């Protein structure tokens, strides 16, 4: 090395020697890798998931209503011709979707990837103020992820990291994709879910006074290396105010990747509550901005 190179090398080493070390977020990286692996087997899931619990343009199934035989309206509904007065499931669910949109809510999402591997996320969001939070815990690797959205400014943190990081720009929604790993999360983001309920297709039937059953299979476009077909089966439950209280579904992925067949099933439960209540989130105290 000449003098210039020596000076540069010494300067670089001096600079880095002065840097404060950070704890290796080994478990966080492991968890990301595990989730990326699951996501890899479900290419295009985000798009496919948008079809879950879809209503618009549906093929409305023959409505089986066993609850009607037992419920308060059993007599009326069992009379000849009474069934024709029962609203079809599609408009009822569409109305519930409309009532659940553009309003604050609390949310809890549970995804089960296998025995002992459960990801649980709690959160709340007020679309009017673009304020909310998500706390996500992955039991398999014992890793937590957190997000706070304060008046459109997003702060994120994970276990092993002492600081919160502020994402550049402003946002009008929580990043379910990051906190819930993208694939299933597109269908658990209530705002996207609600849009899906309005616009996509599925087979829907009403199985209880406030319960709608849905089934849909989505074939995603094949790539050179991957084929994927996804079957969604689940139920939507409304609350007393006829807003969506719970969406529970099981997603089964069938496909091939590089010639190897795979099948993976992921149960997902999205519970919504506290519609219309105020959401208050404080800005983190220790924030590292992105340049």
């Amino acid at each position, binding site marked *: 090395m000449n003098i210039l190179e020596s000076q540069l090398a010494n300067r*670089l080493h001096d600079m880095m020697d002065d840097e404060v070390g950070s704890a290796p977020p080994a478990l966080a*990286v492991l968890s990301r890798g595990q989730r990326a692996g699951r996501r890899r087997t479900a290419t295009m899931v985000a798009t496919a998931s948008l079809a879950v619990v879809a209503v618009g343009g549906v093929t409305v199934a023959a409505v089986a209503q066993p609850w009607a035989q037992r419920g308060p309206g059993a007599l009326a509904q069992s009379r000849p011709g009474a069934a024709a007065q029962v609203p079809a499931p599609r408009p009822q669910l569409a109305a519930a979707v409309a009532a659940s949109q553009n309003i604050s809510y609390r949310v809890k999402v549970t995804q089960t990837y296998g025995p*002992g591997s459960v990801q649980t996320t709690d959160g709340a969001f007020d679309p009017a103020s673009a304020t909310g939070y998500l706390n996500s815990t992955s039991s398999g690797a*014992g890793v937590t992820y957190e997000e706070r959205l304060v008046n459109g400014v997003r702060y994120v943190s994970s276990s092993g990291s002492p600081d919160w990081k502020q994402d550049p720009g402003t946002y009008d929604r929580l990043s379910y994709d990051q906190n819930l790993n993208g694939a299933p999360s597109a269908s658990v983001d209530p705002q996207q879910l609600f849009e899906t309920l309005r616009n996509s297709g599925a087979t829907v039937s009403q199985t209880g006074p406030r319960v709608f059953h849905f089934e849909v299979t989505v074939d995603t476009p094949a790539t050179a290396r991957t084929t994927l077909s996804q079957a969604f089966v689940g139920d939507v439950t409304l609350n007393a105010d006829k807003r969506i209280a719970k969406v529970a579904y099981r997603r089964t992925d069938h496909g091939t990747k590089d010639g190897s067949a795979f099948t993976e099933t992921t149960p997902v439960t999205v519970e919504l509550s506290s519609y219309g209540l105020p959401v208050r989130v404080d800005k983190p105290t220790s924030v590292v901005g*992105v340049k």
Partner: protein
Amino acid sequence: MDRARPLSAADTSFVAFVESAWQRHVRLAMLLTGDRWQAEELLQDSLVKMYERWRKLSRRDDLHAYLRRALVNNHTSMWRRHRRENLVADVPDRAAPTGFDSDIEARRALMSLPPRQRAVAVLRLYEDLSERQIAEALGCSVGTVKSQYARALEKLRYLMREPTYQGDREDR
């Protein structure tokens, strides 16, 4: 938090590798990105990609070299996608009197280099790799490394004004 589920052998070895590699490679990532936050993101992304191939990779004995190559390539890809490193505009337009007066000045000069030149310079000057090792790390020829390194030095020399003599002139 449920930690009852034990990690698999592969996951355990991966966690051990991350713990051993983090401090060493986060500094390399900082020199490539010029920013700690981006460096940690870059390193995490590279490690996650390694995890996806861990069952095959874990049998290799050059894991650190593999991670180094992944870091450089991911950084180049990231730079091409975003092109939003914001320190370039702050590079001084004339040379400093003698060398870099501060770490900030040196960092800015380094960040003024295109990512490939920067990678070559960092791998040569900080990682102390040979030209052949750098070529292997970057997946290019030794000739390319030489030309990239020469251009990087030329620009850094302009920014810091290399001393033109090696001894004390008054002693002659």
